[in-house]
């Protein structure tokens, strides 16, 4: 479904570059945020090109604002296209979310209602991205903190429809599933049972922060600044038992630890994939 190996990968952070290059690392791929590589040149591109020589690469966009009510930012789409042409990633993915309105960029993945109107809009945007890039993309399920009164399509159905009608693949973020389920007091397992797993080209795992709201209810924040939590590992293991090995990224974007710590997380994901492989054999 993508060119990524069915193995565990890790977020690439520039502070890990020399540690990563010191030896062959036990990861199948690295993933970077597209927008961090949109300068003309310098170390950022040099490091990416160097990694690209030895590992598969996933480019993950955070700024296309595919869930925008308005048109896509063509200039930004052209930047993404140039970046993909330059580094030839094995996968390009983006989010079911929006981040730009009237040219103001909010640097956050904002939620949208799920209706026939928004579905049509997102489908048109995914079509436009795939046509511009000349490649199939993956679309990721969001972590959300609010819901919309007007939403009348379940998120899993919404994603399946987009995938079915555009041919895009899906990126299943298991941490996002867990975060949203806790925040909306819904059942993560029911969500995963309904999720079209056959369309999943990559899985994301990450840590979240935990807080309490005014009612004393637990609220989770998709913070990417800590190890993957135990309930997320459990859900992930259950998903992999159903799908078999899927390229799996451990994300870590804030309070970035040493490469050793991130590598250990990737190894845990690899162990889950290896177990599924053995079972299938």
């Amino acid at each position: 479904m993508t060119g990524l190996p069915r193995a565990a990968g890790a977020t690439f952070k520039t502070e890990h570059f020399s540690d990563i290059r010191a030896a062959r690392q036990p990861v199948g791929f690295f993933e970077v945020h597209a927008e961090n590589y949109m300068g003309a040149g310098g170390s950022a591109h040099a490091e990416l090109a160097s990694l690209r020589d030895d590992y598969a690469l996933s480019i993950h966009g955070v700024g296309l604002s595919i869930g925008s009510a308005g048109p896509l930012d063509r200039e930004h789409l052209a930047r993404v296209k140039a970046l993909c042409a330059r580094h030839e990633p094995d996968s390009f993915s983006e989010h079911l979310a929006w981040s730009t309105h009237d040219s103001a960029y909010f640097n956050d993945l904002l939620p949208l209602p799920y209706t026939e109107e928004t579905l049509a809009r997102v489908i048109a945007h995914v079509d436009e991205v795939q046509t511009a890039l000349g490649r199939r993309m993956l679309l990721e399920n969001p972590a959300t903190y609010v819901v919309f009164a007007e939403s009348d399509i379940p998120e899993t159905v919404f994603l399946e429809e987009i995938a079915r009608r555009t041919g895009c693949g899906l990126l299943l973020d298991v941490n996002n599933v867990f975060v949203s389920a806790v925040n909306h007091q819904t059942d993560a397992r029911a969500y995963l049972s309904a999720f079209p797993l056959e369309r999943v080209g990559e899985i994301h795992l990450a840590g979240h922060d935990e807080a309490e709201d005014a009612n004393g209810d637990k609220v989770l924040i998709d913070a990417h600044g800590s190890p993957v939590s135990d309930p997320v590992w459990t859900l992930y293991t259950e998903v992999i038992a159903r799908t078999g090995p899927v390229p799996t990224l451990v994300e870590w974007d804030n309070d970035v630890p040493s490469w050793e710590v991130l590598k250990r997380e990737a190894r845990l994901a690899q162990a889950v994939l290896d177990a599924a492989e053995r079972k299938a054999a």
Partner: protein
Amino acid sequence: MFTDLQRNFSNALLDPDHVVPSGVTARTAAATERFAIYRNNVIVGLVGALRSRFPAVEKIVGVDYFAAVARVFVSGHPPRSPVLLEYGDDFAAFLERFEPAREIPYLPDVARIESARVRAYHAADDTACDASGLVSVAPDRLPATRLILRDAVAVVRSVHPVVTIWAMNSGERPVEEIVNWAGECALIVRPGRDVVVRQIDGGAASFIAALRRGESLGVAVESALADDTDFNTTQAVADLFAHHLVASIETDTAGSIQ
């Protein structure tokens, strides 16, 4: 309808006094409380982008003061592009106008150095040319000749000892009392992978700044002489090539050499 919702959502993100858009709900908590998570993510994320671009400014004013100033900037100047490498290009100009920051008059120039450093870090991978192209130019055509500087090159001119202040707040030199409080000019370059900040004199700074604006050699020399009557053109041009700052040479008639 979708458009209206996103407009209301956007307006409410940067303005805590704006009501949460109708239709935004939460099953367990008050919608306002949940909406506040998005407000916080947006502000904290953008403040974080400024922190990573302006570490010396943050060191000078302290973490809390920086966060407070950055919040004001973020609310009034959200990024106009998803490429956050460029976010904060106008932060120095904002600091200059921002009344509470005026008691630290050198702060905007420190921010200008930090802005230029990040631009230089991501600048194009161009190569330097040597001076041989100048040799063939007839002396009377030299003033109209243009020296095209490499993408990373930038100059910050200041009436404050801004290079020293920046260096002391970036771990480049120990923090100590500045005895001779005089204006300094910074040259920002990227000879290889690493960005370098060097102090240059006022004449050279005017000269390079004029070339950066695309002025001809003649205009750049006039600009330097206006700043420093002892400006030595031959030495300044030799320095440009010695420090690998020139990407190409354009004569007034033909195209570029090299």
